[in-house]
Structure formats: C-alpha cells, structure tokens
C-alpha cells in the first residue's frame, strides 16, 4: 500500500521560531509537493521538487524554503515562523512520466504559530 507520511499531525510553535515539516514517501516517486490548505482557499502550491536537490517555486513560496537531499524525503522549512503561517500543510508525491499523474497525499500537519 502506497504511503506518504508527515512527521507531525499537530504542531504549535512560537513566532520567530524555525520550523521543519518533514515528509517521506515510500513509492520511489520523483515528484514531491508541499501545499498549504486554508478554509475557502483550497490547496495552494508552495514548492515542488522533481528530483533530488531540485526545487521549483509554486504559487506562494514567500516565507518558506525546502530541502530534498534524498529521493524519499522532502522538507518544508519556515525560517522565522509568523502567525499568518498558521495553516494545514499537505505533502504529496507523484511518479514522473507515469501517465497516471495521480498525486498521493499525506494526512497533513496542522501548524499553529502563536
């Protein structure tokens, strides 16, 4: 059974802290994604990666960075957390060139910044 796991389901951090959100997939997928989900706004793409050490900005990259040192792991970093980054964060992966193009999602991390 395919699986995308995220390191925490719930996280509470203080303003100004550096925050790491981890995502691991066990499907050997090339593509990995980080989304932010807010009520009424749907999913918005923060960053995606199509290979190790490769990354591309999505629609809302400001205030975020990412790291992909291994194929199965994709990390989202909030260098200095702010209250407007309180949100649900979803990680996803997909196989490049599979002609399926289905994304597989993790359960999400609900981050609260106080």
């Amino acid at each position: 059974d395919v699986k995308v796991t995220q390191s925490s389901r719930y996280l509470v951090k203080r303003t100004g802290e550096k925050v790491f959100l981890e995502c691991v997939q066990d499907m050997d997928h090339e593509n990995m994604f980080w989304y932010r989900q807010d009520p009424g706004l749907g999913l918005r793409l923060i960053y995606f990666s199509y290979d190790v050490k490769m990354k591309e900005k999505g629609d809302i990259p400001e205030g975020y960075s990412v790291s992909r040192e291994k194929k199965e792991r994709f990390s989202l970093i909030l260098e200095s957390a702010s209250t407007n980054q309180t949100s649900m964060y979803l990680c996803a992966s997909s196989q490049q060139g599979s002609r399926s193009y289905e994304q597989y999602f993790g359960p999400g991390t609900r981050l609260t910044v106080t």
Partner: protein
Amino acid sequence: AQSVTQPDIHITVSEGASLELRCNYSYGATPYLFWYVQSPGQGLQLLLKYFSGDTLVQGIKGFEAEFKRSQSSFNLRKPSVHWSDAAEYFCAVGLVSGGSYIPTFGRGTSLIVHP
C-alpha cells in the same frame, strides 16, 4: 489566465438524494482533470480522473464525472448519497509539462449530508 472554479462552497443534501458538484475551468487546451475527496482529518484521495476518450468517467465509491468541452466543465455526480460521503471535495486541473503534472486546485466544496 488558467483557473479552476468550484462555485459552491457548501452543499447540503439528504441521505439517499442525488448529488452534483460543479467544476469549471479556464485553460488554453483541454487539461487533465481530477476529483479528490478529503475526509475529516485525512489527506486527499483520488476519486476519478479524465484525460481523453469517453467523457463520462467512473470512479471509486460510486462517483462519476462528465467532461463537457463546450461548457469547460467537469462536474462530479452520485445518484444516491451516503452519510459517509460527507467530506471536502476538490477539483484539480492542469497540463502536463516535461512529464510532470502540476495541477491547480479549486477552492473545494464541503458536502454536508443530513440523515
């Protein structure tokens, strides 16, 4: 500009009633179309997808969707809703570039099911 619209933020139906969730898109070419469902506290799960061919596609959990090119729509339907269908539904639309598919998601429709 490319976009995807889910006009209904919330929809309430009675258990056993039929359901239609709307999705409209604006793209230069026929995009690849997906519907995902998100149950409370969970990630998104694929319901069905359309790339080409038969414009009526069947998915899991008894859902189907119809692609209408003339209306730029990909509406999701179910003939009889079950209480367990209460969830958030997302339409995703996008093009393939370089072997990768980077979809744009609609804002979602929250389905409430009354007993």
